[in-house]
C-alpha cells in the first residue's frame, strides 16, 4: 500500500497551550478515514497543518513525501476547508475554472473540468450563478466540487455535511462512497453515524493527543452486537443473559444495549439465535449493529 500522509511527533502551540501533542500516524491509500474528537480537540488545527495553512512548532509532516506547503504544487492533495467561502463577485464556473488553471489545465480544459466537478455535485444548471445566489447547502456542494478538481489522490473534508439537509448530506456521502476506490478521503465530522457508514479507520483526537488509531472492523468487535429496541419486555436483559453464548449485556442509553458474546463451537451463529429470541418474545428492534458503534467505541 502506498503511503500518502505521514505525521511524526507533531507539536503545535497557541500561546502557552498545546493544540497538538506528539501526534503520530500514517495514512495509506485506501478506504476513507475518520478524524473525530470533541470540540477543541485539535481536529481543525491538524487539518490546517496538513493543508499548509498554519505552521507547526516541531515534528515531521509529509504528504506524498513533500512538506504540506509544497504539496500544493503537486495537485495530488485537495481539501474542503471548514467555513471557507468562494468570492461572491464571480460565478462559480469562473472561479472553479481559475482553480483548474492553477492546477495546470489549459483555458479550454479548465472550463470542461469545472463543468465536470459541478455536475458531480448536481450543480450543472447553476454554472453562471454567483455564490451569494446559492443556498448554504449548494455553496457547500460547490466547495466540495472544487476539492474534486483534477481528481486528486487525497481529499480532506472538514465538516463536509455540516449544515446540509438530509438529502444533500446523503448525496455527499454517496459521492465520497463512489469515489473512495480512486481517492482516499479523510473526513472530519461530529456525525459519528455518517463516519461509521463511510470509514474503516479512525483517528481520534482528544486534548491535542491522538488517542486511537484503529480500524472500525476488528476481531474484537465481532464479539459484540449493538441493539436499539423499539419494544421489549421488562425481563429483556435477563432473558438475553440466559443465552449460552452471552458474556455480558449492558444498557448504553435509552433502549440501546450492548451484548458481548462468545461464539460457541458447533452452534448456530449467535445473531441467528438472538433474532429467534426476539421473534419468540415479540420484541421489536429498530437497529442491529454487528459490533460496537463508533460512538460506543470512542466514548
Amino acid at each position, binding site marked *: 500500500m502506498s503511503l500518502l500522509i505521514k505525521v511524526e511527533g507533531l507539536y503545535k502551540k497557541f500561546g502557552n497551550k498545546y493544540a497538538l501533542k506528539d501526534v503520530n500516524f500514517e495514512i495509506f491509500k485506501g478506504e476513507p478515514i475518520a478524524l473525530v474528537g470533541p470540540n477543541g480537540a485539535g481536529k481543525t488545527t491538524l487539518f*490546517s497543518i496538513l493543508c499548509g495553512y498554519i505552521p507547526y512548532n516541531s515534528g515531521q509532516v509529509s504528504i506524498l513525501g513533500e512538506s504540506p*506547503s509544497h504539496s*500544493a*504544487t503537486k495537485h495530488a492533495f485537495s481539501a474542503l476547508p471548514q*467555513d*471557507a*467561502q*468562494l468570492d461572491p463577485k464571480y460565478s462559480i464556473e469562473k472561479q472553479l475554472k481559475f482553480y483548474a488553471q492553477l492546477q495546470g489545465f489549459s483555458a479550454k480544459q479548465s472550463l470542461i473540468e469545472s463543468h465536470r466537478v459541478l455536475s458531480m455535485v448536481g450543480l450543472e444548471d447553476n454554472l453562471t450563478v454567483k455564490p451569494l445566489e446559492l443556498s448554504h447547502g449548494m455553496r457547500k456542494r460547490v466547495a466540495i466540487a472544487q476539492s474534486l478538481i483534477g481528481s486528486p489522490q487525497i481529499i480532506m473534508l472538514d465538516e463536509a455535511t455540516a449544515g446540509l439537509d438530509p438529502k444533500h448530506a446523503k448525496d455527499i456521502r454517496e459521492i465520497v462512497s463512489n469515489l473512495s476506490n480512486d481517492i482516499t478521503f479523510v473526513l472530519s465530522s461530529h456525525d459519528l453515524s455518517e463516519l461509521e457508514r463511510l470509514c474503516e479507520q479512525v483517528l481520534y483526537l482528544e486534548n491535542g493527543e491522538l488517542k486511537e488509531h484503529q480500524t472500525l472492523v476488528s476481531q474484537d468487535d465481532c464479539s459484540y452486537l449493538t441493539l436499539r429496541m423499539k419494544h421489549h419486555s421488562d425481563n429483556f436483559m435477563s432473558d438475553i443473559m440466559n443465552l449460552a453464548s452471552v458474556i455480558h449485556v449492558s444498557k448504553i442509553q435509552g433502549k440501546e444495549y450492548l451484548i458481548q458474546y462468545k461464539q460457541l463451537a458447533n452452534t448456530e451463529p449467535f445473531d441467528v439465535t438472538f433474532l429467534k429470541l426476539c421473534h419468540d418474545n415479540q420484541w421489536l428492534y429498530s437497529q442491529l449493529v454487528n459490533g460496537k458503534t463508533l460512538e460506543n467505541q470512542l466514548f
Partner: protein
Amino acid sequence: MLSHFSSSRVWAIIFFELTRLFASKRGLVVLSAFVCVWLLIFYFIIGYSADFISSNNFKDIAQQTFSELNLLTLLEWELPELTIYWLISAYLLPTFALLFSYDQTCSDRERGTLRFILLRASRSELLYGRFFGQVFIVCTLIFITLLASLFFSLINQQSVSMASLILSVSILLKLIIITLPFIASMSLINVLVKSAKMSLVVYFLIYIASAIVIGLLNDYVMDLSYLFYFFPGEQIESTIGFDGNYLNEYVIPLTQTLVYLLIAQYVFKRSSL
C-alpha cells in the same frame, strides 16, 4: 526549489486579478470614478494650464520659480499638456495606486477564499501574482491617461512630434516606477492585517506615525533623515525635475519595491491563514 514557483500559475493569478478590475461590477465602479476624476483634471486643469504655461508671460514669471525648484527642463518641453500631466500624475497616481491595490489578499483571507487558492498555488506565487496584477492594472491606467494627454495636445497643437512621443514613453516608465513601491508596500500591509479597510488605515497610520517619530528624532536626537528612504515616494520631489538622476528615478524606488516584497514574502510564508 524552482519547481515550487511556476510562472504559469503566476500568470493565471495575474489574469484573474485583471478581471477583478475590468470585469467585475466593483472594479468598473472604481474605474468609472478614476475616469471621472481624470476627465475633470483634463478639462479644468490640463486644458487651461497648458495654454497658460505655453504663454510667454508665464515663462518669464516661472523662469525663476522653476529654476529654484529644479524644474527648468519641464519648461523646455514641446507640449505643455505633458508638463502639467507629469506634474499632476507624479503626485496623484501613487494615491490611485494605493486605492487600487489596497485589497490584494485581505478580503480573500477574511472570507477563506485564500484557502482554496493556496491548495493549488504557493504563497509566493499568490503574493507576486497579485502584486504584478496590480502593477498591470496601474500601468494600463497610466497608459490610458497618458494617451488622453497626448490627445489633448494633438487637439491644441495640431501635431505631436516624435520627440514628444519618446518623452511620453519616458514619462510612462517613470510613472510606473514611481507607483511600484506604493503597490509593494500595500502587498506588505495586506499580509500583516486581515481586513481590506484596515489596510488603508494601517498604511496611513504607519506612514504618518513614522514620519512624526523620525522627524522628532531628527530634530532633537540625531540625524536620521536617511530613514525617510524607507518611505514610498520619498524620491518623487527629486525626480519631478526630470534631471536624469538615476539614483532617485530608478535605484531608490526599485530597491524599496524589492525590500517590501521580500519582507512580505517572508512574513506571508510564516503566517497562519
